[in-house]
């Protein structure tokens, strides 16, 4: 049985909704900037949930007043990596560390590979479970 029809990964905010339009993304960015959060853009070809460190597309953007600049960067990242996952993260520095306050996907591959469950036989008939990202079956550069 397929538990995730369409194979859409659900990570970050709004991931159960249809993909955000640029206008909706702009509104969310506006909210982050209003709160004085820095916004960063990251991409990856391995969406494993334990893969928390995605590649950064440029530095996080500080001291911005308007979302137009971030949207330009998002579109530049989408253009460079059309078949990668791209997410936008807003960092809050009020506690002295840049802690993520918002994070949502803004780009997905046309065909998402998804995951399978790997079962490992261990001693005493116990079974260990882990998930494996199909995307990583191919070497880097050939994925998607």
């Amino acid at each position, binding site marked *: 049985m397929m538990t995730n029809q369409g194979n859409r990964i659900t990570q970050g905010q709004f991931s159960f909704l249809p993909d955000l339009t640029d206008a909706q993304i702009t509104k969310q960015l506006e909210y982050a900037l209003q709160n004085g959060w820095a916004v960063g853009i990251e991409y990856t070809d391995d969406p494993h949930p334990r893969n928390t460190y995605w590649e950064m597309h440029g530095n996080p953007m500080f001291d911005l*007043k308007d979302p137009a*600049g*971030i949207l*330009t*960067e998002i579109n530049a990242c989408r253009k460079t990596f059309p078949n990668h996952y791209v997410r936008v993260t807003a960092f809050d520095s009020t506690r002295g560390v840049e802690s993520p306050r918002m994070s949502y996907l803004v780009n997905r591959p046309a065909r998402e590979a998804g995951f399978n469950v790997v079962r490992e036989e261990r001693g005493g008939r116990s079974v260990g479970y882990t998930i494996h990202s199909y995307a990583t079956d191919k070497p880097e550069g050939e994925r998607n």
Partner: protein
Amino acid sequence: MSASEILPLDLDALYRDSNVDASLEALERELIGLAPVKQRVREIAALLLVEKLRRSVGLQAEAPPLHMSFTGNPGTGKTTVAMRMASILHGLGYVRKGHLVAVTRDDLVGQYIGHTAPKTKEVLKRAMGGVLFIDEAYYLYRPENERDYGQEAIEILLQVMENQRDDLVVIFAGYQDRMERFFASNPGLASRVAHHVEFPDYGADELFAIAGLMLDRMQYVLSEPAAKALREYIALRKTRPNFANARSIRNALDRARLRQANRLFERRGGPLTPEMLSTIEGEDIRASRVFNGEEPHP
């Protein structure tokens, strides 16, 4: 459509709602002289209001390109007008945030290959939704060094000025003659700058009025002899080298305050009234080096 269905268009109401009159009035009140500049700002404001009205009735109304160049000698109010311009454009809804990002060559041009583009782009991103003010813009282009990275910054600027003109307004500022040479050697840039605004030098009376405004803001008054001395000072200072219009006047007043404080301090022990604390006397101004023919402070 019958005539009765056409709503009368109320330009006046739009003008009142946009809060532009407050900005324009402040411009009129706080900036002495500069008649051609004020005229130009008014024209731009009128154009934007009419465009807004045209859009409201469904007429073709493309946002006019508003990149500008401000040319004039130092101290003629280019930065101040740029700041006002940002708030006026914000009031008219032409820019979304209305902040001013003031930069020079150092903020745009990098030190090594590949450094310039990210640096320029970051500044552009910060300026989006507002006004980017590039002071002494001609330093961006250095024809004597063909490996200079300034050209790269200009190209990125051009691209954003053309493709994202809803997102930001760029104002280039600098001295008249050098700006003309700068635009002559960058025709692509010149053709994208729609408004060339010239800032004239101030006359002696205008400088005196500016001094009055500055003193008002600092809560000082000039005594009768001090006012006379200041008029003479302005006439003398104008003929000296390194004269920077309003900036020179501001510096002269700052030094007069210093001398006033010193004068009061040296006569401490005597009676002191609040009037004395806020009055600049003739001797405070006449002690200036300009009066005895020495090289003035800038």
